[in-house]
């Protein structure tokens, strides 16, 4: 007890709380009397007025199908859609807009690579490396590829602290390694993985690298060229944009050499009854009518994030996360999964001896606090940690220290309520 100093927060590191006014959904009361405290941002974030407004404007003024249309609305939509691509390019530091493929989300992007690049390049006996902390979206597609091709799937293990055991990478990497697929930030542990270093080593061994950046692009400044990434995938809905839009970055050389994946409108150069030739990049990988309005709104979300400054977002989240980490440890018996605050992005997952994660989430919700509970699509990680489920609080630019305080207070109450009380079933047999 002597050592315990009450955690403090450095308000100079926080963003102004006034930006909450931009988010209509946060202004609400749930369960009759509790202001909404939204701490489920790693699953999906909310949207500022500025993004919702762009969606409305597109549908009320500018919308038509893109690319093929020679009329005012189609020209407007095409222009805005391609502008969004350019905004994405600049946001992640890609060289060319042709390296930016719009998808429906991270999952779609990773599957595109596993199917198109994977089926063309991975043969029986080849090796694929992932990590123990991958989201199912960056694991199952590689299991499927291994199954189709006869390749071997290997895992970079993690320490009990939730860090990658990077030393093992050099033994895992062989001349049969074709690809290393790794999350830049774990959606459960919060660990920020050293993707630049991993990429360097993988490249030295002749392997290609895919980065699942679903949890990093929304929060930390990303530069695909500095990382050296071959592929990088993320989702709009985790960064203030609508659902239904995601991005796959691929180096032009690789995308160019890959066979087409989904077939249909827009992805062709010429079609005959019995065959087709594929279009140039990026159309080659954008079959069918794309998510036009969501893509344009993703552009607006990027504008918003740039206005605030991603460094400021990161500092804000880091400060909140450190504070939450320290304060949650005040709760007796609470176990935080993963790394110390300085190695993690803005989320904290934890378990209590009692009750189960779902019950914690349910009881937090009754006080207005939205968190996520379960395996968070990382079943192998939960197996490794020998737990069935965990509760996760994840932050974004609109969260406040007061919300963290309330979280800690209610988690403490739940802990007390579910201490074994020697109850007996009534009339039990």
């Amino acid at each position, binding site marked *: 007890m002597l050592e315990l100093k009450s955690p403090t927060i450095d308000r100079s590191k926080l963003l102004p709380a006034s930006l909450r006014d931009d988010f209509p959904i946060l202004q609400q009361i749930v369960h009759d009397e509790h202001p909404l405290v939204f701490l489920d941002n790693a699953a999906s974030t909310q949207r500022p007025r500025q993004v919702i407004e762009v969606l409305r404007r597109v549908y009320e003024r500018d919308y038509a199908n893109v690319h093929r249309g020679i009329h005012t609305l189609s020209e407007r939509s095409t222009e805005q859609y391609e502008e969004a691509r350019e905004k994405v390019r600049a946001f992640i530091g890609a060289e060319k807009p042709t390296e930016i493929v719009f998808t429906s989300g991270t999952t779609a992007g990773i599957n595109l690579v596993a199917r198109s690049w994977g089926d063309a390049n991975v043969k029986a006996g080849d090796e694929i490396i992932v990590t123990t902390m991958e989201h199912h979206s960056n694991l199952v597609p590689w299991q499927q590829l291994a199954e189709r091709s006869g390749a071997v799937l290997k895992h970079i293990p993690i320490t009990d602290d939730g860090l990658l055991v990077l030393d093992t990478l050099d033994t895992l990497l062989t001349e049969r390694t074709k690809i290393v697929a790794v999350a830049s930030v774990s959606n459960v542990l919060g660990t920020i993985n050293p993707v630049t270093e991993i990429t360097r080593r993988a490249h030295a061994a002749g392997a290609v690298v895919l980065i699942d950046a679903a949890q990093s692009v929304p929060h930390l400044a990303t530069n695909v060229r500095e990382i050296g990434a071959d592929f990088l995938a993320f989702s709009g809905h985790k960064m203030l944009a609508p659902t239904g839009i995601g991005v796959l970055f691929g180096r032009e050389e690789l995308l160019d050499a890959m066979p087409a994946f989904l077939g249909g409108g827009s992805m062709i150069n010429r079609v005959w009854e019995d065959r087709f030739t594929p279009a140039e990049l990026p159309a080659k990988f954008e079959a069918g009518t794309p998510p036009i309005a969501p893509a344009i709104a993703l552009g607006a979300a990027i504008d918003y994030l740039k206005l605030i400054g991603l460094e400021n977002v990161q500092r804000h989240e880091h400060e909140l996360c450190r504070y939450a980490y320290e304060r949650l440890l005040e709760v007796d018996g609470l176990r935080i999964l993963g790394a110390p605050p300085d190695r993690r992005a803005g989320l904290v997952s934890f378990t209590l001896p009692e009750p189960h994660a779902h019950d914690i989430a349910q009881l937090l919700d009754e006080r207005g606090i939205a968190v996520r509970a379960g395996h968070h699509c990382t079943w192998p990680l*939960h197996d490794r940690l020998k737990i069935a489920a965990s509760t996760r609080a994840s932050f974004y630019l609109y969260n406040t220290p007061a919300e963290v305080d309330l979280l800690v207070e209610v988690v403490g109450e739940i802990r007390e309520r579910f201490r074994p009380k020697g*109850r007996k079933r009534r009339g039990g*047999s």
Partner: protein
Amino acid sequence: MPIDEEELYQEHILDHYEDPFHRGHLPTATHAHEDNNPLCGDVVRIELELGEDGKIRDCFFSGQGCVISQASASMLLEKMQGKTVDEAKQFSAEDMLQLYGARLTPNRQKCCLLSWKVLQSAVHSPVGRDGT
């Protein structure tokens, strides 16, 4: 604490959670089944000893998960002990939700119905030589 339909964690539910009916294994089991809720990872296994008279002579459950999934398993088995297999089959999802008592949102209904689903499969799943 108010005890009304809205209250998920009513006292009698917590009683079942803390002092469950027949949590454990049944060495004499003739039938058994295990399943999980893929959305959250809850697991329930039910082991049954079915008599030649078509009755559930004995039943045990094991697993891990939320208060709802574990307490509902306890309630279900307490109710089924000694019942016929036909009665178990006729026990509907609605019956299960009613037995549980507290009103549940759709997501949480899945927790409550996990043990019920496992029971419905268990009565059709004779235990193999290897005890599975």
